[in-house]
């Protein structure tokens, strides 16, 4: 089924889910770079560092994600409202973590194998999937470039993209991988190579994600609300591992809290 009328929307919202959340602040190394709130304490509790190597395809059963329950039968789930406020201004994205890995070393300057796990949700082609570097243990003081070899949305391998590794990249730090010209998504990651050592081994990995919604607050503490028409009623796929990332207008993400709602139909 799909929600196709206003009455179905109302019925779906009345039967939908509500997920409250709050997260403590994470320190960022550089204002304006994205930060993952995956390992931030709060409610839900912090997520764990993913498996190394190929990583895993997390689901709504993975500790650290919002408590999303799959709709039953042939129904679909839709995001219909989100309200959020934080002590730092910025832009938050609700994301579905499709695949995440760890175990990459910030001092190794030869090719490091990833061969990431396969995407399992309906995004399996990788169309529209974004790729980020994500830090789980702080890296060294030298900024570097990471070259990533990946398979694109069409299944073409040996594609390359680059990401900035900022100085002292902290836990939760993320950096977007710029895809090769013409690519519109990522299906899997095969390997990465640093331009030079960052100075500290640390621990970082690759995260494939799909953005569900993005909202911004220009001023701290004021908060922001989007209803179903603001959001465009995006689908939340069954098994979605829902979490947040943030572009903070400061060198910390600040505390944040909010609520999101879904409709089922």
């Amino acid at each position: 089924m799909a929600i196709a009328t206003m009455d179905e929307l109302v019925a779906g919202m009345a039967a939908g889910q509500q997920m409250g959340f709050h997260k403590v602040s994470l320190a960022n190394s550089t204002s304006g770079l994205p930060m993952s709130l995956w390992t931030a304490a709060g409610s839900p509790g912090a997520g764990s560092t993913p498996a190394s190597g190929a990583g895993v395809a997390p689901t709504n059963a993975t500790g650290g994600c919002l408590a999303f329950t799959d709709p039953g039968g042939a129904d679909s789930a839709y995001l219909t409202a989100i309200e959020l406020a934080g002590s730092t201004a910025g832009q938050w994205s609700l994301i579905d973590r499709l695949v995440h890995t760890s175990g990459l070393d910030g001092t190794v300057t030869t090719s490091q194998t990833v061969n990431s796990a396969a995407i399992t949700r309906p995004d399996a082609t990788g169309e529209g999937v974004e790729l980020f570097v994500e830090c789980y243990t702080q890296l060294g003081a030298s900024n570097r470039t990471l070259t990533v070899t990946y398979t694109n949305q069409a299944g073409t391998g040996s594609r390359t993209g680059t990401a900035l590794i900022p100085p002292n990249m902290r836990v939760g730090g993320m950096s977007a991988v710029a895809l090769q010209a013409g690519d519109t998504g990522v299906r899997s990651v095969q390997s990465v190579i640093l331009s030079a050592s960052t100075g500290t081994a640390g621990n970082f990995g690759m995260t494939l994600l799909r953005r569900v919604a993005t909202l911004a607050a220009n001023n701290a503490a004021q908060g922001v609300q989007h209803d179903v028409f603001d959001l465009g009623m995006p689908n939340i796929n069954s098994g979605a591992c829902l979490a947040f990332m943030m572009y903070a207008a400061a060198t910390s993400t600040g505390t944040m809290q909010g609520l999101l709602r879904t409709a089922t139909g």
Partner: protein
Amino acid sequence: MTVTSVADLNSGVRTSPFFKAITPNFGQNVNLGSSWKLGVVPDVGVTPPTGVGEVTTSATVGALSIPAPASGNQMYLRSFRASLVESSHASPVLLFDRLVHTSGLVANITTEQAVNSVAVARGTSGEGVLAFMEVYTAIGGTGSTVSMTYTNQDGTTGKVSPTTAFSGGTSPPTGALIPLCLAAGDTGVRSVESVTLGISTGTAGDFGITLARRIASVYAQNDVVTNGFTPSPGRKADFLDCLSPIYEDACLWFVTTRTTGTASSRLMGELGFVDA
């Protein structure tokens, strides 16, 4: 029965107004402020029992009076309007169903303090339930940390939360509210067994644990004025933002973020309900 159409939303809408007098320095030095011990509508809430506390209901003194649904019907929140009247108090206004509350804990010791709270019972096994440290008599001004041992949403006992820091400088007053983090992977709280502070705040005071389920929120604008009585524009959430089931015996409760203002402020508005 349940809401299944737009027509259901427009049939028999009933409202419950609220008006809270917010004291200066509300929630000072912590994240949030609880309106539970503030008047006027609803009335000043009762200080919870010590020890295991109690399950709160719509009959608990301090809960917002809400209409009862017709027999066999389910009540829904249809709209939420709120404004804050005060200089420079920009804040979300959060609406919770207050499920369990306790008191009798002191803030000048660092040994484990037993709570063994009653378990949440209304519409949840603990999934999505948030836990707060709530101050009923001002505690000391020395910054500290708090952690809890609790039973999670799956009924697993002995879960230990990460420590949550709260800053010092000015004693967190009555109403100071600190959200507590959960252990990695947890998504709710069924009951709280104990609480431990990292450092004595210097004053015993009185605090407790509040377990609550979030329902809706609106975000009142920052409206810097000089006389303290100019209304902020206020904000409104309609059914597109906030359609939520409300349990018949819900203990509805408001929370805002802190203000460091020296003027008093007022939180006022109304909730709209439908039942179907």
